[in-house]
């Protein structure tokens, strides 16, 4: 009886492993393998070499794109975590109906198409966009500002806007789970609103903050569509570089090497985020 049961369990486990293997591990392995190949006469030569990685490390153009991308992702993560906290804190403990409406307002953009959201921001920032026309009609500026679009700043702004729900929601959800008794206890012991925030709310919502920063960083570091659509010639990022290697340049091995680099960055961010999401007091309880 138990032998048959464990056989069924084994089969299920094997199926799960097989699905994971085919859908995730195998493509990644193919990528990893490609990153060691090279291109000759528009043909992929399947010979093992570190040439792509050497090129990555030695070419200052690629290095600067890499550093620029990490810096961009960190900036977006920082800005959105702060803004996410401000919005989540403002949404915290509202009346039932307002509460629901606010969550909906934050979550609905997640259901919209990514491209539509990007175009919305682009239309807002453009020379004939809402921001410029408002500023001109108010007489604050004489002619439309051109520097709002097609540069790194535009990429930063668009990433922040589009990724904001990923910051607000995890922070808000953990914040809502902080028992109000603890806030009362802190106030009872003499804590001001600021002290309540830094000693109770913020540390207890740390797992949500970790989730928010990890998601935002990973999305921001890997995105290629936003730099492509609003970045112009200056807004060049790692994601865009990978995209051009696979598309325009038709250099799959080099693109694969860049992608492996991105995966390493992403995994590092996830591991760091995991550590932050499990603070010491929670690990000790387990």
């Amino acid at each position: 009886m138990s032998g048959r049961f464990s056989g069924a369990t084994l089969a299920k486990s094997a199926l799960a492993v097989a699905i994971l293997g085919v859908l995730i591990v195998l493509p990644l392995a193919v990528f990893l393998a490609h990153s060691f190949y090279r291109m000759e006469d528009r043909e992929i030569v399947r010979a093992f070499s570190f040439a792509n990685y050497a090129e990555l490390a030695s070419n200052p153009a690629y290095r600067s794109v890499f550093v620029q991308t990490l810096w961009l992702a960190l900036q977006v993560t920082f800005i959105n975590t702060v803004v996410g906290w401000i919005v989540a804190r403002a949404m915290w403990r509202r009346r039932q109906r307002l509460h629901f409406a606010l969550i909906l307002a934050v979550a609905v953009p997640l259901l919209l198409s990514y491209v539509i959201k990007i175009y919305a921001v682009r239309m807002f920032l453009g020379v004939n966009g809402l921001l410029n026309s408002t500023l001109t009609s108010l007489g604050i500026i004489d002619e439309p500002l051109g520097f709002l679009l097609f540069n790194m700043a535009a990429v930063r702004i668009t990433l922040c806007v589009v990724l904001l729900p990923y910051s607000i929601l995890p922070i808000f959800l953990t914040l809502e789970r902080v028992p109000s008794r603890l806030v009362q206890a802190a106030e009872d012991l003499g804590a001001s609103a600021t002290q309540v925030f830094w000693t109770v709310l913020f540390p207890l919502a740390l797992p949500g903050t970790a989730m928010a920063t990890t998601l935002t960083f990973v999305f921001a570091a890997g995105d290629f569509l936003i730099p492509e659509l609003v970045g112009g010639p200056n807004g060049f990022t790692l994601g865009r570089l990978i995209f051009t290697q696979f598309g325009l340049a038709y250099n799959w091995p080099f693109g694969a090497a860049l992608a492996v680099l991105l995966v390493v960055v992403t995994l590092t961010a996830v591991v760091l985020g995991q550590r932050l999401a499990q603070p010491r007091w929670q690990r000790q309880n387990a």
Partner: protein
Amino acid sequence: MVLRLDRVTKVYNQFTVLQELSLDVRRGEFLTILGPSGSGKTTVLQLIAGIAQHTSGRLLFNGKDIGRLPASQRPFNTVFQDYALFPHMTVADNVGYGPRIKGMNRRDLLSLVEQALEHVELGGMGKRYPAQLSGGQRQRVALARALINKPSIVLLDEPLSALDAVLRRQMQVFLKAAQRSSGVTFVFVTHDQEEAVAMSDRICVMNGGRVEQLGTPAQIYHEPSNRFVSSFMGETNALSAIVWSIDNDRVVLRSALGDLIAYKRPYYAFVPGAEVLLNVRPESVQLDVSGGAPNTNRLVAKVVDRAFLGPNSKLTLAFPQAQNLHWDVRTLGNHELPAAAGKAGEVTAWFRPEDCALVPASGS
């Protein structure tokens, strides 16, 4: 007196939780606010703590109105029902929270916390997290966290309700001792009348947002001022009666069980003809075993039920003259029917005039 609630009313969602409640808290006393759920007892505590705001009335601390001060600026600290310990802080950080946010330096804080932990018998536990402690230990951390601020009043909101019976007893003794040794005023909220009697200097019995009676445990138990208090404070045997006559120290009553005599207490304001409720505690009802009982307050009854309760037994009596009336009697030790029982389980029960209390039959 250290704190006075002066005609405090609290309306919450158009529902009057407290109605013109007045209450004095004396310096250094252990005052228990006792009442069933919904009586408003926790609201009183929250108003004092500043967690809730009263609708009208005044809250005077040493003569000053503190009703609009935020909780953080009142010299009171609360021990919450579920302890409300900060899960992300160690025991030492929890206990030191109050002084720390007020900017005490690290060295003083360390020794103060250590002292506070010793005081609640948790020395050496400072590095643990609340989740690693037992219920009783968390309770003591919560108490230490309140006492370390040297508050004028410690407010305790049913802090023992989550503990099992044995631990509860221990914590009652512990809390009482902590209150005595610190000299701090305790205001303790509970629905458990045994707990209230065991711990308090004074008890404030609340019901329906009002104070029913305020007094020492003995006063509350033996001299209830109304029906609610007599029935809420432990078991009682009640009997409707009419005041027949009153002389110097005795009240003669007429009841379904015949004429009875009650000792006249100084606060009684009954006039002849008043409808009253006579209350006799089960432990005050005696069974006439040897036939030597006095002639007053003798009741012939039938034992209809017996229950062995360990230290004593409970006999339930029924009376031939009054159907549906049952009295409980506590007998020490032997749960067998007393030898005095005649045929068909008939016994003679009696009680002393001083062992009964009269309350108005009408009213709460």
